[in-house]
């Protein structure tokens, strides 16, 4: 026994690199077969790898791939082969003709994961080609499969809503999700926000215009007189202006310095609003306008500042989850 041990160890060491090389060869062949859309060949190679070197790192990967492939063996791997052939193509090669041909094939696929995953792929691919009606049809076909998992149902519904939104507007997409009881999804929040964005832009621009109009109205005839200019700029107002300028700058530079442009706009616009409000207030005082007019200018200045901030963030794409 003692004499045999060195021989056994020598054999083991001699065998190990060869076994590792064989495992690497099988792993490479299996991966290539998957890429070519030949899952049956891949399964055979992965099985051989697990048998040849069961404790190796590559065997672990092979077991995982086997599990995935064998869960999609319906139709003797033919549907999977067709699915992989489309999935593994770059988007530019997923043309309308290819998608239409694949869609015709999918209709004949047996029940199972591959059919479901094929409809998901088709829905997204049609959406990417700006074909929302065909995308809707694909997502509906996915939803119609009797064996959907719960996460798939949510994905199919949200895909359908995005397709509906692309065809009929974000409100229609959001309504579809509301009807399906999926108001808590982020897609519903996004579509709702999109639906409100247009009216809110108009409202924000209106506040800014209203504020400018109010300043001109209360300060009419007195707005740019030397007396008003002198009255408008007190130490307190300069301090407020500095605050309006510095806070957005500090937020930008400390939180995220590459959103500087957005916050610079908020800072500059905020200072301009403050200056206009000061001028308007001083002009109103100079012509002894009613206090209510001065209060209205002050109130509109606050609203205008909020509107400016909203428009700046909206323009920069950084206004998320605010309205839904």
């Amino acid at each position, binding site marked *: 026994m003692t004499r045999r041990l060195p021989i056994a160890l020598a054999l083991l060491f001699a065998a190990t690199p060869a076994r590792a090389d064989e495992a690497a060869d099988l792993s490479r062949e299996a991966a290539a077969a998957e890429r070519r859309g030949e899952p049956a060949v891949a399964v055979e190679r992965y099985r051989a790898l697990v048998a040849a070197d069961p404790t*190796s790192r*590559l065997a672990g990967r092979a077991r995982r791939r086997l*599990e995935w492939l064998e869960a999609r063996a319906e139709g003797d791997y033919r549907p999977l082969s067709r699915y992989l052939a489309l999935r593994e193509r770059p988007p530019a090669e997923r043309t309308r003709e290819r998608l239409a041909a694949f869609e015709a094939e999918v209709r004949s696929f047996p029940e199972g994961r591959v059919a479901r995953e094929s409809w998901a792929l088709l829905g*997204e691919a049609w959406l990417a080609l700006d074909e929302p009606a065909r995308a809707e049809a694909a997502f509906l076909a996915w939803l119609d499969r009797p064996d959907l998992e719960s996460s798939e149902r949510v994905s199919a519904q949200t895909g359908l809503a995005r397709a509906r939104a692309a065809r009929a507007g974000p409100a229609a997409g959001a309504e579809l999700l509301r009807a399906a009881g999926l108001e808590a999804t982020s897609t519903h929040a996004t579509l709702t926000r999109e639906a409100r964005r247009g009216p809110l832009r108009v409202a924000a621009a209106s506040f800014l215009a209203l504020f400018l109009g109010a300043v001109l109205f209360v300060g009419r005839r007195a707005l740019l007189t030397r007396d008003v200019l002198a009255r408008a700029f007190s130490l307190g107002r300069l301090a407020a202006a500095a605050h309006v300028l510095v806070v957005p700058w500090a937020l930008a530079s*400390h939180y995220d*310095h590459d959103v500087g442009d957005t916050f610079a706009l908020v800072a500059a616009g905020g200072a301009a609003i403050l200056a206009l409000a000061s001028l308007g207030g001083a002009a109103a005082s100079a012509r002894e306008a009613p206090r209510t007019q001065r209060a209205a200018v002050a109130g509109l200045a606050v609203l205008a500042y909020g509107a400016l901030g909203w428009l700046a963030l909206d323009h920069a*794409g950084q206004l*998320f989850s605010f309205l839904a």
Partner: protein
Amino acid sequence: MLHRSLAPFALALLSLLPACEETGLMRFDGGTTPPGEDGGEPAQRQISYTPEGCGYTVTSPELESAAMGTDVQDPDNPVLHHVHASWAGPTDSTFAVNWETGLRTLASRILYGTDRAAVEAAEAPGGDVLGRNGHTMFYRAMIGGGPGTRLHEVHVCGLEPETTYYYKVGGPGRWSRVYEIATAPPVGSTQPFSFGVTGDSRNNLENSWPISQRRLDEAGVDFQVFSGDAVFLGANQADWRQFFEASVDDFDVTDFLARAPFMMANGNHDQLALNYVAQFAFPQEVSEGERAQGMEWYSFDYGNAHFVILNDTVNDSAVLAGGQARWLREDLARVDRTRQPWIFVSHHRPFYTCRSTHSPDTALRAAWQPIFDEFSVDFVLTGHNHVYERSTPIRGLEGGEGVVAATGTNGVPTYDMAGLPSGTVYVVAAGVGAELYEVSSECTTSFTSMSVRPYVIFEVEGRTLTYTAYDAMSGGMLDQFTLTK
């Protein structure tokens, strides 16, 4: 939802407070005894030790208490979850595991071996099953931590390369289920391997975080490089719980994170908070200006590739362009390109990105690109913009802008006789959870881009590399090329 929109301002305010920036924790007054720990001795706030058989030292962050594990189990709370693996030492002979338990559990052990059934049956080391003891940590997070968080960390060393091991963590009487993990090929080996790349999982919109992890698990990748922003607010423990507890159908993200080591860069939302630092084990080699016990930036080798993880959220430009840049240069200078022809770098903020929400970080570009150029880095993997983007190969700067290098078919670099690329490819692949952004391909340095939730798989075998980007939601391929150097 309103609190989400205010969070950037909360982040900004947090970052304005230097004392809080690195903590994300309540201040410990030293007057109370952490749950489960004997009140006889004052709690130790930090622990530093060399795990058995490891050639490196592990140092915990400074928190409410840190101690070597015992066999104590929380009698009232049997929970043991968030099991996830990473590397703090050589990838071909070590791995580290972190997990969370009930507050009074101090057991921080691991049982492991190559025989799954033996590990499943074992209650203690013996026969083919080996054991190691780790350390335990306790803290009360500034936000969302409830009565506190009890973490455990254990390091296993002295393993055989290229081998699948099975392990379970916990302690006598209460063990996790058995997970498997594989060691890497030896450094310089040409054995094939693959890894996944994702980022910006925060918020888990459309449940895309667990969906992406399930797809990477099914692909069988060996490990994952994550470019930052795991959570919305790094100091919020509730966000970390959401990160670790995400699931889709019968798949939990820890099914994958416990098997495939997770190597992460700090993102602006992670804030280098202690919650983050305490919950992960990465290589710890403190260099000039580095915080987080040396985990702020680090590198590791896997087979014939070298990986560098950087922290670009440093407010101090002297560190960004000084200490960290010097460390980067020294680290890359040590790489023997004949044995490790591939170099990958990952950090959070892209400095090549085209008309998306965040502009290219030109200060970062000026600080780091000359070093990437000098050492012919192959790929730079980033996030921050929640899109998919791949640049043309880039080498050199003119007026602060990147110069497009010699480009082969499908936008890939060309290679010289030494196998060095004509330029570095800059990838933005993030948004498996965060809100999607718009993006353009119309910049000179941009090769392709899409507003999708992407993940990327690199398959490396010797001097050949296959790169494939996928849409996590549909599973469809977005981009692919193969390189041979």
